[in-house]
């Protein structure tokens, strides 16, 4: 093979590899975005359904039960079980134990801030979110990992 031909061959090969990798990676990105879009729509619909059901009830403490409804979990576990298999979804459910315990701590702190301070609802809720992260990851580190 002459030098010019080998250079042309190498250039074509590298262009092919680059374009093929780009096409493959774009395909994966497109599949990921499609999956995320489906998760967004299904998750949003289930969360909204539980919100409507919660709004039907009085007193407010009973309606508040639906604020901790497993709406995100149902959407995620159902899609994950069908796509990745039940063992994968079961692993997610196990980690959810730590998340649920952290959610309890979040709700208690948020209720105290709302009742005992002059902070507005949004500020009280946002202030309690670090509590969720601290509890969730601490429990994950101790018990789940």
């Amino acid at each position, binding site marked *: 093979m002459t030098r010019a031909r080998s250079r042309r061959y190498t250039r074509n090969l590298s262009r092919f590899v680059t374009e093929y990798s780009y096409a493959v990676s774009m395909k994966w990105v497109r599949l990921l975005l499609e999956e*995320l*879009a489906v*998760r967004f*729509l299904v*998750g*949003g619909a*289930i*969360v*909204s359904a539980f*919100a*409507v059901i919660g*709004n*039907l*009830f*009085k*007193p407010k*403490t*009973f*309606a*508040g*039960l*639906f*604020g*901790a409804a497993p709406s*995100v*979990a149902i959407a*995620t*576990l159902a899609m994950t079980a069908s796509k990745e298999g*039940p*063992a994968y*979804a*079961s692993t*997610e*459910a*196990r*980690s*959810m*134990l730590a*998340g*649920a*315990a*952290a*959610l*309890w701590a979040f*709700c*208690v702190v*948020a*209720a105290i801030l*709302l*009742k005992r301070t002059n902070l*507005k*609802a949004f500020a009280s*809720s946002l202030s*309690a*979110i670090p509590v*969720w992260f601290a509890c*969730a*990851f601490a429990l*994950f580190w101790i018990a789940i*990992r």
Partner: protein
Amino acid sequence: MIVKVSFAAVRETRWYGYVIRFFFGGAITAIAGWIAHSYGPEVGGLFLAFPAIFPATATLVASHEKRKKQSKGMNGERRGSDAAAAEAAGAALGSLALLAFAAFAWQFLPKFRSPLVLAAATIVWMLLSVIFWVLWRRLKLSRIRGRRHKHLSAQTAH
């Protein structure tokens, strides 16, 4: 201790309240999926119980109650915060039941069909939530009665 069903509350809720909940609920579902995809199901599973919609819900509930009070010519700020605090207390009870949902799903998803397991787990969550709420309500009422009895006894003694 009566639980009432009220369609008026659903009608009174503004349309953007549901749009906001749809958006936040959908976003956290997508993010949980992305985190599981990037970091594994152990980390992704934590976010299945992330309080993504609570700040929006608490704000909407507080502003709704505040508006109702203000329509009668009163300051509704405290009423709004108290309503949101009541929602948070209810959510705390619901999150205890959520532990049972997660444990049920963890144990039974590998053994049975996932739609059945998730439906059964949701029923378990609902039943336990109601039980916890009833117990909490009874405890609260008995404490209030106890305090009232003590106060009356103190007044009678004087």
